[in-house]
């Protein structure tokens, strides 16, 4: 942290799966690298009351395979599995992915979905930033040059919460063109009481489809899913690039939102049938 304070052009090297390509391609040329790979205190997974606390240096593969994560917040393991390829997940870290802030990456999508709390430290002390305020723009995070992201805290949702996840990419392990994650809460009568939907790859930063979520509450009707998917697509503001046109992205938002939601509601219906 002292080095970051003294050398504003220093960069932190975590798993290196984004920064090292940028160095190799000469698109980044920091004056110094601060390698935190051997800072053991930054690599942990702890279930602590109503939260899962994850050290920023924790690697994707550890999160994908963690029994604690699978039990407490399975959507995190599901999302981790979608990241890159095995050799990438063996090195890449949750903190690195969040600070790199690719709009189509899985950790920003999930952090925004669950509105995780991100802890940043510098020589001046620590502060906590809400994930929904962490991404001011594409490939930009709220971390200051002299700060280091140390910890991510995900709230553990009630047991009756169901999760959905759907993404489309050209090749397995590539960045998603569009990715959708959702967390739907149900009451004892299997009625939807909370609905959060986040969408990556459509807007410059991960987006929350608030209106779409609102229409789902207190309903189990199939047409509400379609209506919510339409609303999510209408709320998205995608642009065209080499990977996909804006029109295709908007269509993917609708289709993937519907798929992710069905994963939650279909399970609800199945369990309802089993209970009857």
């Amino acid at each position, binding site marked *: 942290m002292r080095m970051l304070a003294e*050398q504003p052009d220093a960069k932190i090297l975590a798993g*290196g*799966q984004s920064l*090292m*390509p940028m160095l*190799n*391609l000469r698109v980044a040329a920091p*004056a*110094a690298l601060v*390698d935190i*790979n051997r800072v053991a205190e930054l690599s942990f997974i702890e279930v602590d009351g109503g939260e899962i606390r994850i050290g920023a240096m924790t690697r994707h*593969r550890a999160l994908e395979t963690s029994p604690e994560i699978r039990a407490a917040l399975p959507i995190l393991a599901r999302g981790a599995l979608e990241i*890159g*390829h*095995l*050799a*990438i997940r*063996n*090195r890449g870290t949750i903190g690195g992915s969040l600070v790199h802030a690719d709009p189509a990456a899985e950790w920003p999508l999930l952090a925004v979905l669950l509105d995780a709390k991100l802890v940043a430290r510098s020589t001046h002390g620590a502060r906590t930033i809400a994930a929904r305020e962490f991404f001011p723009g594409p490939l930009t995070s709220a971390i200051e040059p002299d700060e280091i992201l140390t910890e991510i805290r995900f709230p553990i949702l009630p047991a009756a919460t169901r999760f959905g996840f759907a993404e489309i990419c050209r*090749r*397995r*392990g590539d960045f998603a063109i569009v990715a959708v994650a959702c967390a739907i809460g149900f009451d004892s009568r299997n009625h939807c009481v909370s609905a959060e939907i986040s969408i990556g790859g459509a807007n410059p930063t991960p987006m929350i489809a608030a209106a779409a979520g609102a229409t789902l509450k207190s309903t189990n009707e199939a047409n509400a899913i379609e209506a919510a998917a339409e609303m999510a697509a209408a709320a998205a503001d995608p642009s065209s690039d080499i990977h996909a046109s804006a029109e295709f992205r908007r269509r993917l938002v609708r289709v993937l939102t519907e798929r992710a939601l069905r994963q939650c509601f279909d399970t609800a219906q199945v369990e309802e049938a089993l209970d009857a």
Partner: protein
Amino acid sequence: MRDESFTERRTIRIVVNGVEAEREVGVRKLLADFIREDLSLTGTHLGCEHGVCGACTVILDGQSVRSCLMLAVQAEGCALETVEGLASDGKLSPLQEAFREEHALQCGFCTSGFLMTARELLKDEPNPDEQQVREVISGNLCRCTGYANIVSAIMRAAATRGVK
């Protein structure tokens, strides 16, 4: 500060294919270049140099990693396995033998990356199904074979490993 970092060197000790090695290396050198130039193990190939093609995949402390996305100094104290460590006494490993039998390579540029990736898979999952094989090798590009024979070779290696 920057000028010093261009020339700064450090001594690292790593275990390479079971043998301890100590080398002085520039702090900016990639692990892949260190393997090829300092260790003279040229079976590890560099393709895209930004983590996409998988040609430079090696095993570090039991896990596959892209050697183009690590600095050599980061491997200090680690156990490194490269493709040269697979064969023993001039005899191909069962995995290599399966690649030969199934014609899983043509030009061979990507092969060492595929072998090291498959090695991690078979270590963790001795009896993978075809879907698992395809998922694990999704991070390695081959422009010759069309992948079918690579999948067959890994399945064959899994089936014959016990027999050796």
